[in-house]
């Protein structure tokens, strides 16, 4: 194949594969959420939908849900502002999709003498792009709340915009420590930086270098994704369903997709920044090299497979963690959310930056 054609083919293939992976995971996550919730609460969960009598533990329920959403009546309430009401789900879903672009799914691969990065775009601004994109999610929620022309969605939209703005601050600041340690905001360089060893024993993952930063980022991310314990915007006990009360059919499913896509992308980002991305512990390009000087040679193809596998495993774990936390911790009260965001998270993230700077200064002297 000729040069430019090959590049285009590679780009299209990358986008297709990564999208398929993320959306596939979204579908699976809806099932995991329902089934996991059921088992945690001593129930059985979905197990009825079947194809030719095969039930497969309810795995066909997402399919049935999708079909149901597609064929339901597309209803617009009388009070709603028609245009904005219809735009809101798109505003909600689009940023979530855009986030996929900067996640490195694996190390560079050499195919037909060319190096291909397993990442759609390795931007110079790296994680800042993610902040820019996830900042857009607020519009979906706010617009949905306002355009529905109803009280509960309006309250939900107000709550969520205030919450997202508050936690965006600590989310950004909690990552500064990571940037300082790995001296880059570029995703690929942060992952590459996590390949070394800390004190010759631990893998130099973000979570070991920046434990406080990790906790802060994780909490801020749950707040950004509007997941329990921060799901105030859709607190059913007081706001019916919050900002998407008036939505039905496919528009509602777009909100749902956006939420789960946020979870998947969020899980991938946590795995990339704090758990070494595609780095497999003690695995170098040539094989395993354990701290005791003990080495095992591994063929390159297997190395690649192990690395991509380790990334997928980390993403699955963190996506599951969202579900697990949701069915463990009850919802906060709104003033508690705000107090946590401004009076706990923000000072702690500033302290984290200060401490990281101090330690780096002392180490590099």
């Amino acid at each position, binding site marked *: 194949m000729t040069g430019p054609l090959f590049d285009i083919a590679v780009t299209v293939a990358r986008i297709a594969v990564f999208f398929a992976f993320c959306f596939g995971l979204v579908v699976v996550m809806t099932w995991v959420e329902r089934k996991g919730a059921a*088992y945690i609460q001593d129930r*059985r969960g979905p197990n009825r939908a079947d194809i030719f009598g095969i039930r497969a533990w309810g795995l066909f329920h997402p399919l049935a849900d999708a079909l149901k959403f597609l064929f339901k009546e597309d209803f617009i309430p009388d009070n709603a502002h028609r245009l904005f009401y219809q735009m809101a789900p798109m505003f909600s879903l689009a940023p979530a999709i855009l986030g996929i672009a900067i996640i490195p799914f694996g190390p560079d691969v050499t195919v037909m003498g060319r190096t291909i990065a397993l990442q759609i775009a390795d931007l110079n601004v790296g994680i800042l792009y993610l902040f820019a994109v996830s900042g857009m999610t607020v519009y979906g929620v706010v617009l949905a709340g306002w355009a529905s022309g109803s009280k509960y969605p309006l309250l939900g939209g107000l709550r969520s915009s205030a919450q997202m703005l508050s936690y965006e601050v600590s989310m950004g600041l909690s990552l500064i420590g990571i940037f300082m340690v790995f001296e880059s905001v570029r995703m690929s360089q942060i992952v590459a930086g996590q390949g070394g060893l800390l004190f010759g024993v631990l893998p130099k993952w973000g979570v070991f270098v920046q434990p406080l930063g990790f906790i802060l980022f994780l909490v801020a991310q749950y707040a950004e994704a509007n997941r329990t314990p921060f799901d105030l915007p859709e607190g059913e006990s007081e706001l019916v369903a919050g900002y998407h009360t008036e939505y039905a059919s496919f528009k509602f499913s777009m909100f749902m997709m956006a939420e789960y896509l946020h979870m998947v992308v969020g899980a991938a980002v946590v795995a990339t920044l704090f758990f070494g991305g595609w780095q497999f512990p003690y695995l170098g390009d040539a094989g395993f090299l354990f701290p005791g000087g003990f080495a095992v040679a591994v063929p390159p193809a297997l190395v690649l497979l192990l690395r991509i596998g380790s990334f997928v495993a980390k993403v699955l774990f963190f996506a599951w963690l969202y579900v*697990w936390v949701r069915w*463990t911790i009850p919802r906060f009260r709104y003033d508690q959310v705000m107090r946590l965001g401004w009076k706990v998270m923000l000072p702690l993230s500033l302290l984290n930056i200060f401490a990281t700077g101090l330690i780096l200064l002392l180490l590099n002297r």
Partner: protein
Amino acid sequence: MTIGVIKVARPREMSFPESLYLLEIVKGLGVTMGHLLSNIVRQEGIKTIEYPEVRRPMPPRFRGKHRLMKRENGAPRCVACYCCSTACPAKCITIVAGESPDPAVEKYPVRFDIDMLRCVFCGMCVEACPCDAIRMDTGWFTPPDDTREKLIFTIDTLLEK
């Protein structure tokens, strides 16, 4: 008479590690994971009754769907005396009486419809019946159906049970 003052135990002060929440959250995660794993390993430990296939046994005096009793020769035991429809507070029983072909019996119900959508399952009809012709001892409630017409039980369906 003095007004009693009840002492309510105040929630105790949280210790410092508790007030950080993090350890407590991890403990909570442990609890939920324990439930999840034990339920995956031992499915029979789950209390859910899978309804259409498995039915909860009803207590013996449960008032459920009605049934009409038969005589030895198979004719309905009901003599169309209208006692049940008179006693019914929901007015859900419709009876049309006819002359019985059996000379020993005066009347028999040509129609005996119970509108199950209106029935309140009070059991007054059973109490009122002088011939023990109607009973509510089927041990099951009205199953759902997709039209209103199907939920008006006629004499044939009532005799079947």
